[in-house]
Every structure is written in structure tokens, then in C-alpha cells.
């Protein structure tokens, strides 16, 4: 059943090769540099779509597995695999990078910018595909370097501060995880008989004493909580997002934050099911605080980009809520929402970037009446924004609805509070839209240029994805669900947790239509 071509390794190695090629080519051949970056990123994107097409939709296990020994004395192997949980994140990564490379002009030092972007892509792909704790840590950590340079080199005024804060904050989280990873492998050796960092082996064969498991879970959870970010570890995010160049923000919001939530699923729930169930109330509470706090903070922002950044805190709160509600629907919704948030927030950052290119400001107070001078731009912004709010018929609704339905069964009161976050999302986004796009344009805004063809094409890709997933989520759901069900079953068999006995609500693709 496995394709003989090691496609997962290629997804990681291809961008690296591209980055190396770009580095060795002289600065004088800028066109060739751009062409290489384009070809390699599109190649990776194409391969990820091919992966999606040849993925067996009802198989819950890991597919396209590739395993080679690496550091044998430590039991570390190059072990890659993809399942329903990681599949769409890989595809999202594959799609977002070429769009960033094609859609945003960094204005200076193209060569280095593109090389860093490709390295970043390799790191992100590696994080989503690794099935070895050591390998995962390497990719999780290596991602910091290109992102650091992207923010620091091509960002706005306070870029160095933001980049350093981002780097150190995330590295501090990873420091705990590194100790946790080593301790996990060392302790698992007693059950397994030999030292291995292999995720599947440890998760299936090792069991940890109650307290040990909790400590280990906490060490992982700190790293992921910083990355997501979960309140109160989120303070790096508004700075990093706001100061990052547009491309950096898109990637940061689109895929980098998902490394945290994905980590919770893959390494939190799967490795330490009992501890995850134990930590459930705390994480649910923090998630709900994040939803409400993110929304309120977003409402008060005067900077459009910062507003979108805080909206990410709120949206990621929903995803964490779904993960720790631990029901099939909530988890499926969370996985879906990871992708949806990547699409809609990625698109929002693109659009905010376009506004900045035209007006050289992101202050809401300085923008007015854009709708009357650039109607197409405004329409695009409106659709993306509605998707972010979670309006039925668009992708944001499908994920959020599943999360709320699933969480309601096992975490009722948290869900009730969280649901108000949906209303708050409408509040801050619509209010921002009203201030920026409605009214009469003043002198500075009356020359706001309409969307160019290139920008339009770029946004059309996003709108296409938003519409398709919103109306017809079935292909996505049927690939996510088997893996999620397997994970829930794993948690149930390895802890005293029982899934709620409420009859399963089958979400048909037309289900949302009915709710509209």
C-alpha cells in the first residue's frame, strides 16, 4: 500500500535543497533565485496535494511511513508518517508557502529571505511528519532560527525586540520539553527493554506511573502552551505577529501556532492519556480564558494587525478547548479548525499587509471608507473576515460548530462560556470592518488602490478553500475522523476517562446548511 517513493522525506528535504541552491547562487541572478524558490515551493505544494489525493481515507493508522536508523546508540530513527491528524496540516503548509513566496514582496535581500522561508518550510513539515520524539524536537526547535531571522530581518520598527522575545520564549518552553523527552525515553526503557525515542513504540508499549506521567505531560505541555499560545503564555504572540513581515505573519499564524496544538494531540494525548485527562480542567479553563481574553483584547486594539493577532489567541483557545474536551467531534473539529484558522487568518494577514503596502499604516483610526474606493478589496476582506467569525457556509463555522457540539458533551459549562466567544468575534471583527471600510474616505484614503490581479488571484485561492470547506467538509472529515476516533479510543483504554454517553451526532455535510 505504500508508495515506493519516499514522499514524506522528499517533503522535508526538497525545501532544504532549494534553500541551499539559493544560498550558493550569486546575488546578481535574482530572477533565478526567485524562480528556484517558486519551483521548489510549488513542487512541495504539488507533492502535498498528491499526498492528499493518494491518502487512504478510512485508514486510521500512519501512512507513507518511512523509517531509517539515525543515532542507533540512542535509539533515534528518521521515522516519518502521516495520518488524518497531520494530513491537512501538511497540505496547509504545502499550500501556504508557495502563496507567501509568490504573493509577498520582501522589498530587500530577496535571496536570504527566500532561503530562510524554504528552511522554515522544511522545519514545519518535519514537525508535522515526525514520529520520533528526538526528530520532532529537532524540527520543532530548528523552526525558531529561520523565523527569528525573518522577523528580525524583514519586520517593522520593533522587529529585533519581537524576534528575540519570540526566540527566547519558545526556547524556554522547549527546554522543559527536552528534559521531558529524554525522561520519557529513559523511563519507557523499563517497559520496552531498550532505549528508543520512537513515538509509536513508547505510546503503545510503555506505561508511566501516575505522578511520573503527570510531570512528563507538564514538561511537554509547557512547550506546546507557549507555542499555541495558551493564556497566560501568549505575550510573545502580539509582538511577533505585529512586527513580522506579512509573509512571516501568514506563516506564523497559519502553521507555526498549529505546531503547538498538534503537539498536544500527538504528544500530549497520545503519549500521556491519563495525565492529559488529569490536566483537562486546567487546560479547558485556560482555553476558555484565552477565548474571552483574546476577544476582549482584540476589541480594544487600535492596530489592525495586532487585532488579528489577538483574534488568533481567541481562535486557538477554541482549538485547545476541543482537544481537551476529548470527544470524537470536538477533536475532529479542532483538527479542522487548525486548518481553517490557518486559511482565514493567513488570508487576513495578507489583506492587512496589502493595506499597509498602500497606506503605510495599520492604525484603524487612520483608515476610513475604503469600501467606496476599493469595493473588490473590501468584498474579499469581508468574506475572509466572515470566515474568521465563523459564519455558516464558510469554513470557520464547520470547525467551530463541531468543537462546540463535541465539547458540550464532556465539558458543558466551559463550552457555554466559550460559545459567547463566537459573539465577541463578530463584535471585534465587524466593528473593525465598519471603522476601516465604511464611511466616507478622507483625502489619504481616497486614493486607496483597488486589488491588483496578482493580489486577487492570491486571495481567490483562499476564498476558494474557505467556500469549499464551508460547504462541503465531508472529504476532510472522513480523513480526519478515523485517526481521531483511534486517538480517543487510545485515551479511553489508557485512562479512567469515559467518553460521554450521549448518542453520536453525525454531522452530515448538509448539517450546517440546515443550521444556517
Amino acid at each position, binding site marked *: 500500500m505504500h508508495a515506493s517513493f519516499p514522499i514524506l522525506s522528499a517533503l522535508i528535504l526538497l525545501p532544504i535543497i532549494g534553500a541551499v541552491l539559493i544560498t550558493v547562487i550569486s546575488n546578481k541572478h535574482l530572477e533565478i533565485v526567485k524562480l528556484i524558490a517558486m519551483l521548489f515551493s510549488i513542487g512541495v505544494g504539488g507533492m502535498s496535494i498528491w499526498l492528499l489525493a493518494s491518502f487512504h481515507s478510512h485508514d486510521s493508522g500512519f501512512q507513507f511511513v518511512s523509517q531509517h536508523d539515525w543515532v542507533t546508540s540512542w535509539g533515534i530513527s528518521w521515522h516519518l508518517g502521516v495520518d488524518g491528524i497531520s494530513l491537512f496540516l501538511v497540505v496547509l503548509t504545502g499550500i501556504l508557502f508557495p502563496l507567501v513566496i509568490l504573493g509577498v514582496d520582501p522589498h530587500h535581500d530577496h535571496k536570504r529571505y527566500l532561503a530562510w522561508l524554504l528552511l522554515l518550510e522544511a522545519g514545519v513539515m518535519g514537525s508535522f511528519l515526525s514520529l520520533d520524539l528526538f526528530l520532532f524536537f529537532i524540527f520543532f526547535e530548528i523552526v525558531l532560527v529561520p523565523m527569528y531571522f525573518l522577523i528580525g530581518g524583514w519586520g517593522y520598527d520593533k522587529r529585533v525586540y519581537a524576534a528575540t522575545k519570540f526566540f527566547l520564549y519558545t526556547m524556554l518552553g522547549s527546554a522543559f520539553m527536552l*528534559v521531558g523527552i*529524554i525522561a520519557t525515553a529513559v523511563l519507557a526503557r523499563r517497559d520496552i527493554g531498550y532505549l528508543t525515542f520512537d513515538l509509536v513504540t513508547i505510546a503503545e508499549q510503555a506505561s508511566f506511573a501516575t505522578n511520573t506521567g503527570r510531570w512528563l505531560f507538564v514538561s511537554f505541555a509547557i512547550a506546546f502552551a507557549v507555542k499555541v499560545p495558551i493564556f497566560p503564555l501568549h505575550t510573545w504572540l502580539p509582538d511577533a505577529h505585529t512586527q513580522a513581515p506579512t509573509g512571516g505573519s501568514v506563516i506564523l499564524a497559519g502553521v507555526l501556532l498549529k505546531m503547538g496544538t498538534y503537539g498536544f494531540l500527538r504528544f500530549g494525548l497520545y503519549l500521556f492519556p491519563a495525565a492529559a485527562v488529569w490536566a483537562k480542567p486546567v487546560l479547558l479553563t485556560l482555553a476558555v480564558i484565552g477565548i474571552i481574553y483574546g476577544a476582549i483584547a482584540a476589541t480594544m486594539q487600535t492596530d489592525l494587525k495586532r487585532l488579528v493577532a489577538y483574534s488568533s489567541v481567541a481562535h486557538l483557545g477554541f482549538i485547545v478547548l476541543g482537544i481537551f474536551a476529548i470527544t470524537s467531534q470536538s477533536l475532529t473539529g479542532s483538527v479542522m479548525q487548525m486548518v481553517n484558522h490557518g486559511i482565514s487568518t493567513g488570508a487576513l494577514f495578507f489583506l492587512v499587509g496589502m493595506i499597509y503596502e498602500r497606506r503605510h499604516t495599520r492604525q484603524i483610526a487612520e483608515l476610513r471608507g475604503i469600501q467606496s474606493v476599493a469595493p473588490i478589496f473590501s468584498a474579499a476582506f469581508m468574506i475572509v473576515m466572515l470566515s474568521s467569525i465563523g459564519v455558516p457556509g464558510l469554513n470557520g463555522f464547520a470547525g467551530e460548530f463541531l468543537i462546540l457540539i463535541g465539547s458540550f458533551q464532556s465539558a458543558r459549562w466551559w463550552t457555554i462560556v466559550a460559545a459567547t466567544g463566537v459573539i465577541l468575534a463578530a463584535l471585534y471583527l465587524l466593528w473593525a470592518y465598519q471603522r476601516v471600510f465604511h464611511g466616507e474616505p478622507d483625502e489619504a484614503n481616497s486614493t486607496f488602490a483597488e486589488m491588483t490581479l496578482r493580489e486577487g488571484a492570491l486571495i481567490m485561492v483562499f476564498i476558494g478553500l474557505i467556500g469549499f470547506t464551508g460547504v462541503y467538509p465531508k472529504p476532510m472529515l472522513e480523513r480526519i475522523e478515523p485517526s481521531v476516533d483511534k486517538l480517543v479510543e487510545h485515551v479511553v483504554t489508557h485512562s479512567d476517562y469515559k467518553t460521554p454517553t450521549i448518542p453520536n451526532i453525525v454531522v452530515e455535510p448538509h448539517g450546517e446548511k440546515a443550521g444556517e
Partner: protein
Amino acid sequence: MVFAATLEGPSIPWVELIPILSLLAGTCFLLLVGSLVPTWPRRGYAWVAGISTTVAIVANAVKWNNLRYDNGETFFADVIAIDRFSVLASITICLAVILGALMMSAYLLRMNADGPELYALLLTSAIGALVMVAANELIVLFLGLEILSLSLYLLAASNRDREQSQESGLKYFILGGFSSAFFLYGVALIFGSTGSTKISGIGQVLSGNISVTNTDAMLLVGIGMLLVGLGFKVSAAPFHVWTPDVYEGAPTPVTAFMASVGKVAAFAALIRILAVGLEQRVDDWRPVVWALAILTVFTGSILAVVQTNVKRMLAYSSISHAGFILVGVEAAGHAGSDGIATSMNYLAIYTVLVMGSFAIVLALSGNTDGETNLSDFKGLAKRRPALALAFTVLLFAQAGVPLTAGFVSKFAIIKSSVEANSYVLAIAAMVAAVIGAYLYLRIAVSMWLEEPESDSEILVDPAVAIVIVVSVVATLIVGFFPELLLHATRLARFAPL
């Protein structure tokens, strides 16, 4: 003549001494021929030093190969132990000597002061280091320590045109004298309580049934004094105060040499004393090392934050590296730990990183060897992108970023520590590593994100270029294929008692 017949010295297996003898021959050749023949070909002195060190490396490599099936043995009435541990440390030291000699040649040519003396001192200090790592006897160890230290005092003060260099040498000399006194007094006390100065002998006495209860306090004070003396040499906090001043003032190649060779030798000696001689007293020294380790990692990384001179920054980072190695030493104090192997692994990798980093500092330090402020590194990426990239790799390696040797070394140490259940120490070390990362980021920011202050051309001497390329390539190779080095360090064992 009568006495000569009865006083029989130990038999001398000259073959085992080839590494030391080769360095000694190089020293003598440099000094004798150097004073007789006034003009030597360009880099001639460096070649002599390099060749004699290469012979030492080859001899060590052959010995390593011969030790495939056994752990080595002791010679000269058991005062010198040629085992896999000492051979590995010797190879590390000799490699550092070669890299140091390369940097030295570039430095001296630039200062227009080429001469045999400094190379001879490099070799003698290496002789001291080789004696230290193989010494199985505390007096012999002290001899090695003094040979190493005296050469380093002179090397540190060797730049006569620069006041800081004089200050550095003098400071190092006075404080080093203090620490030697501590060490020697510790030796005396341990001898008093155990009746032996042989490291393996002390171990035998302590593990035997001979009661040492009456002399317990004496032994403990002795252990403490040894730790102070060697703690000074490895620049462990709170004995680190000399490090930044001396590192800053000494000529850059000497700083690199001091930071690598001095540390490898002192750590090897410390590990042998603790693991072989004081194995039975693990419960006494382990808590001390624990405290030293925590203090050292945090002192190094926190104080580095406020520095503005790159050489001082690297000095503090070397303190924090010493703390990491102490974490490994602490782990070695637990039964069944591979802490010794991972400490050796860290030392080998650290040697390469520190050599490469200082080589880049040397390339930038200008004709006075004094332009090492952070502002001198501004915009390096625009002036010499390759140099900036190399320094970035080395700095990120020191910070412990994956796919570099630095990550491998940190990972191995943390793994030993976790296996020994020293979780607090492991977490503290990692947190300190994050604080320390700020330092490397600051240098990276200067190089990549700021505008250059001068546009004078940076000339990189080919010898320095070799050091940089070798260290960067080694950093990446070990980062991607850690097994190569791990395999060797895992075999680092002591000769049987």
C-alpha cells in the same frame, strides 16, 4: 655508586611517551634552531609545531587502536595511566594545539612579530595538559598543572604592546598561584588521611577496610581544596572571576587555546580524581558538584547578558559551558551513569566550537588585536557574509540549536543527568541555556540586522580560514551524524586499578 645499584628506578616504556616526547622535541627544536637560525621561512615555526603535534596525534591514534580490547594500563610505578580516557583527551588537546598554532601564525604575522617562543610555549603547555590527563598520581598531576599554567601565564602576557595583555597575564598568574596552593594543600591533606598520593591508590584505600574515620574531616577538607583548585582552572563559579578579564586581555589565539586546552586538561584531571580516586566518597563530592554546576551555568549565562565585548561574552559563555560539563560530572557520580562519556563528548565538541568562534574574533580583531567590541561586529553580514554565516553556525551551536554539534553535546549531558534522576539539575541547566542563548542572539543581531560602522576590508588569513572551515564543518557533521563521536567517547574508560 653503591646507592645507584640498590635504588632501582621503574622501567620506562618510551613508546607510551611518544606524544609527550614529540611535543618536547618540537619545543627544543623551535628554541634551539630558532635561536641559531635567525630567518625562518614564512610560517616555519607553525609548521614545526604542527608536525610535532601531528606525530603526537598519530601516536595517540595508534594507541587508541591498540586499546580496542582492553582499557589500558598504568606505567612508571603507576603514576601515568595510558587508557582510553587519557588517549581521547590527549587527541582532543592535540587537535586544539594544531588549531591554536594555525591561529597563532596568523596573529603573529599580522603583528609582524613571528618568532619561535610562543609556539614553544604552546607546545610546553600542551605537554603539561597531556601529563594532567594521564596522571594517576596527584603530585605528577600537579607538575602537569604547573607546566600548563606557567606556559599559559606567559602566553597571556605575550603581547607587549597591549596593556590589557600584561594585566591579563599578571592577574592569571597571581590568582592561578592561589589556586595551585589550594590544590597542593588538598593533595597534602588527602595524603595525610589516606597515605597515598596515587589516584588509584587513594581509591583502593578508601574502598578497603582500613578505617579512615579519625581522619574523615581531613579527607573532606582535602577534597574541598582539590575542588577549589581545579574549579579555578575550569572556571567554575564562584572561582570564575578571573576568566573574563584574562580572556579579554590575552591575545585572541591564546584565549582560544586557554579556553579549550586548559579546560579539557583540568576537567579530565577532575573527572579522574573524582571517579577513580574518590569513587567511594561519591556522596561527599556529588552535592558539591551539584551546587557548583547550578551556580556556574547561571553565573555564566546571566552575567553574559550585560557584556559589550565579544571576547568577554565568549568568556562568560565558556563559564556556562563549564557548568554544563559539571552537570555531566555530577551525573557521573551516580551508579551506572555514562556521565564521564558525555562530559568527554561535551569537551571535545566545546573545543571545536570555541576554537572556531575565537578564530572569527581573531579575523575581526584588527592589527591591535583589540577590536573585539560588539559594535565591531555590526553589519558583518554585509561586509563578509561567509564569515557572518560561519560565526552564526558556531554561535547557534553553542546555544544548543539542533543539527549542530552543540545540540548533541547538550542533549548527551541532559540525557546522562536525567538517567541519573538529577531532574532539577537538568532543568536548571536547560533554563540557563535559554538565558545564555540571548547572548548569542545579540551577536547574531549585530552581525545580521545592523548596519556596519566601518567598511574597512577584513582580511582573513588562510590559516584562520582553515580553522574556521574545519570547526564549522566538524560542527555540522557531528550535528547530523552524532554517532561518530558518541561511539568514541562511550569507549573512554579508565585503566583498571
